[in-house]
């Protein structure tokens, strides 16, 4: 019987060094059965490297790692037999059709042909690609390829599905389709491990997450806990016409006290506050008149900003 408190993956002081560069610098975490666990961080934070180590395709250079209570170094093949992996670049087989991709992959897990075909048909239906079964992979859109990679990762009924940036590079509509399928998986009780640099993705999908920066874990908890612990309830965004970095930094100094903390960004000033109305009143009282004022709830993006002093996704516009 599945035990809800069973630990699927545990790491202690896990490290990975490439030559002189240490990509993962001693991380500790434990992933329980049935939960959706996220690694949130900017590009190059060490998320993918950690995923590869859990997936038993990269050997740690320090610390300990156990997956399903086994040692990835000596029992990699047995562990991989119970994992489903969606790599960042899909790694679909371009020489095969959509349907063949699934059937051939099933055979790598020792699944018999008849069962493989039935399973492939069922999974194509799950990711809504049945009508594209006979197409070449290269004819699919990016979102469809990602959904096919997700279907492929489920071919062996994995106990844990690892998704490395499942929606990076997808348009908004394709992202929502992927999210919706991942929600379905969650409801079926499949344990999910994902990396992302989108805070909305982490907020929506993850029960628990860790924030990674420069190879280290700098915070962990549920999305709500992280927000409660590291930032205030609300954030007021102030814009001052065309005022930019230096001017905004100078302006920020004059705003001391209108909120719990003031954070100048290149294009706006963030005021962290427990009550946006109080902040607005304080601004009025000081005769500060921004060209635009936007009060909103604090998000994981704010948590990341507070912890690292940097934005999660480098200026996408």
């Amino acid at each position, binding site marked *: 019987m599945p035990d809800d408190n069973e630990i699927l993956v545990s790491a202690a002081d896990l490290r990975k060094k490439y030559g002189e560069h240490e990509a993962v610098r001693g991380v500790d975490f434990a992933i329980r059965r049935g939960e959706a666990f996220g690694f949130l961080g900017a590009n190059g934070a060490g998320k993918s490297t950690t995923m590869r180590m859990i997936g038993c395709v990269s050997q740690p250079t320090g610390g300990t790692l156990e997956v399903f209570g086994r040692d990835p170094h000596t029992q990699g093949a047995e562990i991989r037999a119970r994992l489903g992996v969606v790599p960042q670049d899909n790694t679909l087989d371009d020489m095969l059709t959509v349907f*063949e991709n699934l*059937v051939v992959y099933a055979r790598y897990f020792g699944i018999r042909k008849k069962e493989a075909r039935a399973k492939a048909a069922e999974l194509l239906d799950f990711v809504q690609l049945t009508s594209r079964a006979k197409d070449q992979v290269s004819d699919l859109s990016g979102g469809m390829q990602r959904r096919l990679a997700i279907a492929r990762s489920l071919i062996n009924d994995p106990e844990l599905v690892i998704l490395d940036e499942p929606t990076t590079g997808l348009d908004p509509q394709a992202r929502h389709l992927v999210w919706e399928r991942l929600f379905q998986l969650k409801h079926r009780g499949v344990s999910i491990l994902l990396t992302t640099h989108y805070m909305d993705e982490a907020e929506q999908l993850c029960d628990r997450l860790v924030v990674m920066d420069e190879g280290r874990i700098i915070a962990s908890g549920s999305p709500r806990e992280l927000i409660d612990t590291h930032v205030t309830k609300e954030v007021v965004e102030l814009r001052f016409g065309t005022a930019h970095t230096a001017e905004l930094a100078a302006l920020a100094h004059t705003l001391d006290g209108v909120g719990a903390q003031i954070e100048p960004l290149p294009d706006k000033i963030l005021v962290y506050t427990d009550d946006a109305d109080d902040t607005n009143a304080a601004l009025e009282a000081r005769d500060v008149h921004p060209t635009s004022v936007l009060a909103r709830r604090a998000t994981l993006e704010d948590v990341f900003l507070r912890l690292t002093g940097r934005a999660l996704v480098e200026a996408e516009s």
Partner: protein
Amino acid sequence: MSVIAYGAARAGLRNSGALLNRNWIAMRRAWILILSGAVESLLFLFAFGFGVGALVGDLTLPDGSTVSYTAYVAPAILANAAMMGVLAETSVNVFAKFKWMKVYDGILNTPLRPADVALGEVWWALIRGFTYIGAFVVVMGLFGLLDSWWALLAVPACVFIALAFAGIGLTLATLFRDWTDFDWMNAVVFAMFLFGGTFTPVESYPGFAQPIVYVMPLYHGIELVRGISLGQLGPMMLVHIAYLLALAVGGMWIAQRRLARALYK
């Protein structure tokens, strides 16, 4: 212990079989490519065996016996066919799957290990190689070039050639960085084809060149297949077989090590 070994062998067969299945499904739409390789060897046979053979007539071998030139050249071209099919499959095609199409990157996340991938590619290359060899032997028979029943043993003898070049091809696929690297491989292969004892006995070369020929894997393959085809067996055949097997095992071992190093980053 033997139970564990048996289990490991079964898993290895099942895993490499899964890769074989993948290659079969991927290639069954491109079977014409495989056929074209067999045609190439037959063209060589016609050009050299019958064209040149008509001019040369009979050839006196170092041991004093005489054979028709066509019967002399045909086994060498058969050995060459065994090499070409396997080498093309393991070197160029594996390189493409490995570095260009990244097929193994996806396979890596399954229970398959680099050794399973290497073994699966060898099985596949052998199958492809033997479609060439089979077609070739049938044509040799039709033209009366199979002098004795011994000649049928030439087919299993080609297994050793195919295995050796599967090992060499796999290793090259992991060593090569660029498509241009295949140019020098083709140059070496062509040199072996011309000077590995295909057209004339090695004894007719100048003394300094002979040791170079003895190192060539194709030379040992040609001697093996020719000896069997002409019904001239001898202890040297064991040396040829040992040399080819050593290349096969060494090549596969290096290849799976290099695949593991490159993929398990």
